[in-house]
């Protein structure tokens, strides 16, 4: 489904709010002031729309989630019941821009907000090798011996790039079926909610989280165990809701050129998992200005002659270009390759190099490791050390040098995260659900990088790196 929806053009990043929506049953829930939830999602069709008014009275923003074919009746109810907005789940034509389907409704109903939901998300979690299902069947899971992280970063990064002039994109996921929880334990538990919230914050993408009806009922019934769980979730909701809403762009040293997601998704997923700071761009959006932001490029699609020349010039200026499953003819083929291996051919281009991989990415894990190795530590915009369960994303506002770094720890125990960010900064400040903003972190500058350690990262945190302005002294 995801792949079907991601067939559109992938271009410039759109601003994102990283709000956490909760999909609930149309039944009672304690007031917003108590749950710390701001936005509720109700699935269309609704049997009794009066629940909308009740939720609104309790302080919630209410959204309706519907297929595009149901937009007309849903909008009518939304107008009547003062719903905050609509979330469009399925597009009639996956290849069609959602703008065309939704924009006519949006133009006629300016009081309503509209969002497009991309399906195919996964419950964020650290996984081992076993999959335990409710019926007791165990199966082989990932063949990776490093902790496998189910993450929505690749989906989020691609989805936010997909419809440049469209409505905000959001994702959702289903909670994985549990094994046999011990008596009295909730599934999902507080850490599961916290991780989903922190991940959405790091991806800078809206997410819909399912609130199981059993928990909804228990919270309404003032069940002490349910509230014991939820009180642990509230700080993460508060933390997420206080994130700055700005038109940020990912800090990326690596560009990914892609026009079709199916054959590149898993490779990009593993690139995200290995903390390769990247952004995805459709070939049509490739410009010299855009290339100037990166020092490496991975190409998953065919390019026209103009784009090929652009990439050759990029390499000539010291860049690294990697073509995946490349069988096109390129100008540099007239020169002798620097190296010819069983899977790849490497050409020298000025100060840089061009690597052509003659096959698709068969082993995404190995490819991502190779990529990090080829790019090298000096070219990486950010790096983590000994933090195999942590994902990092970095953003800056357009034209600004200050960076906000988002960290998400998928393991269930705190970890000290050693971080290296390219650039010089005057201060490094940490905020987290456990720490009121902000705690200054000691840092050192080394070879053009700023290095620091985030102590005891539990689930999520933001680190603000303030840029060293001319004439300022570093710490």
């Amino acid at each position, binding site marked *: 489904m995801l792949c079907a929806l991601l067939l559109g053009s992938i271009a410039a990043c759109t601003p994102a709010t990283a709000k956490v929506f909760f999909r609930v049953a149309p039944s009672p829930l304690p007031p917003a002031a108590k749950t710390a939830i701001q936005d509720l999602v109700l699935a269309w069709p609704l049997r009794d729309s009066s629940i909308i008014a009740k939720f609104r009275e309790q302080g919630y923003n209410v959204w309706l989630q519907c297929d595009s074919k149901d937009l007309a009746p849903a909008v009518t109810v939304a107008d009547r019941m003062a719903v905050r907005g609509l979330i469009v789940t399925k597009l009639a034509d996956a290849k069609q821009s959602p703008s065309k389907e939704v924009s006519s409704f949006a133009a006629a109903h300016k009081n309503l907000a509209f969002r497009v939901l991309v399906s195919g998300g996964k419950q964020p979690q650290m996984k081992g090798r076993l999959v335990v299902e409710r019926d007791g069947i*165990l199966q082989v899971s990932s*063949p990776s*011996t490093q*902790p496998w992280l189910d993450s929505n970063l690749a989906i989020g990064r691609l989805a936010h790039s997909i419809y440049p002039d469209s409505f905000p994109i959001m994702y959702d996921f289903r909670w994985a079926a549990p094994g046999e929880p011990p008596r009295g334990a909730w599934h999902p538990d507080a850490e599961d909610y916290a991780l989903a919230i922190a991940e959405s914050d790091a991806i800078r993408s809206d997410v819909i989280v399912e609130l199981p009806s059993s928990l909804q009922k228990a919270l309404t019934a003032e069940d002490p165990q349910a509230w014991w769980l939820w009180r642990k979730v509230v700080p993460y909701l508060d933390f997420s809701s206080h994130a700055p809403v700005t038109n940020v762009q990912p800090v990326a040293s690596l560009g990914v050129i892609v026009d079709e997601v199916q054959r590149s998704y898993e490779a990009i997923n593993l690139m995200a998992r290995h903390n390769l700071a990247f952004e995805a761009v459709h070939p049509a959006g490739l410009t010299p200005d855009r290339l100037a932001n990166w020092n490496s490029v991975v190409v998953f699609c065919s390019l026209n002659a103009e784009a090929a020349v652009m990439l050759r010039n990029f390499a000539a200026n010291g860049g690294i270009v990697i073509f995946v499953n490349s069988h096109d003819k390129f100008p540099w083929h007239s020169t002798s390759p620097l190296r010819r291996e069983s899977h790849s051919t490497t050409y020298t281009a000025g100060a840089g190099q061009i690597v052509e991989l003659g096959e698709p990415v068969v082993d995404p894990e190995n*490819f991502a490791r190779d*990529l990090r190795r080829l790019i*090298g530590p000096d070219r990486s915009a950010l790096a983590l050390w000994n933090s195999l369960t942590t994902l990092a994303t970095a953003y800056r506002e357009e034209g600004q040098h200050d960076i906000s770094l988002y960290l998400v720890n998928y393991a269930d125990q705190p970890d000290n995260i050693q971080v290296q960010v390219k650039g010089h900064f005057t201060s490094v400040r940490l905020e987290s659900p456990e720490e009121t903003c902000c705690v200054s972190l000691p840092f050192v500058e080394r070879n053009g990088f700023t290095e620091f350690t985030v102590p005891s990262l539990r689930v999520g945190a933001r680190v603000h790196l303030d840029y060293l302005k001319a004439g300022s002294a570093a710490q």
Partner: protein
Amino acid sequence: MRWLKPAALASLSLAALLAWTLCSAQSSAFIHQKRYVMGTVFEIVIYDEDLSQADDAARAALDEALRLDAVMSNYKPESELSRMNRSAHFQPVHISHELYEVIEQSLFYSRISDGQFDISVGPLVDLWKAALAGGPLPSVAEQAAALHCVGYQKIELMSPDRIQFHSDCMRLDLGAIGKGYAVDRMVELLRARGIHRAYIDAGGSTIYAMNTPPGAKAWSVRLRDPSGKLDPEIMLMNSSVSTSEQSAPSVLQGDAPGHIVLPGTGKPLQTRYAVSVTTASAAASDALSTTLLLLGPTRGAALVKTLHDVSAIWIDSDGQRTVAGEGAAFHLAGESRSARISPATRMMIETFEADRDLRQ
């Protein structure tokens, strides 16, 4: 040698066995817990009538692994191993019972492998690790300097609890045995808590099966096969299996080094084999898997013949395999026959196959 063994795989295939279980006996409930330990994910499955007891026991076992990580980690500067590595050059230092024991076991495997297994390989591993991360390949001089620091004979254990290095640059790395040692301690802990049926997976590269799943005669574990042709399996009961394999070669660069280093030459091992070893102890299977990968099938098989209750299988990327030992048998489902079936396990596998055929 380090905690992680990329692509060193031995994976669990329990669907068939569990289906069998459901046919032949009423299944007990089970719990499944996982924890990030030693750079990988440790997982435990416990079958027990009392799930609260099982849950507590699994948590305690994972806590034990975490505690041992704090003892044996070479990534954590404040681990007992790291502190020992900084000070044992100067004078004998006191170490914990666990650290003493795992080093003692390591030295045993160093001696029987004529130094192919060597926990003093740390400086060499660190040297090549930088290259693995994208740094330049180490120079010949750097390799020689690191090689100078290596040699298990320079480690002196003084019973009952002291150690001294007879080299000023020695640094121990327990990556090739530590996970197995931790699994053995977890098994002890589970048994002490009355757990009888459990499966412990240390990131896939070392697995221990306690007893059997309810109604089944063994835990069936699928093993790493670089060729994808043989589909090897082993049936475990109160035994362990470990798998080692060199890092996958780079598809973008031809000269990327692997993570397993030959102590003799100081260079990364070049091999197309994956090797799986089964024996009664997880520390033994863990240490032997690396040892036998380094030795290769010819010398490795000769070593296995000298050991009690050990079996090993080497499989290369073309599907060529060598099997050795008198322990549990490897079943090659891809060839529809066993590579070597010991009398003790022949009946078990035949029963399993017959039951599987019946279900189909």
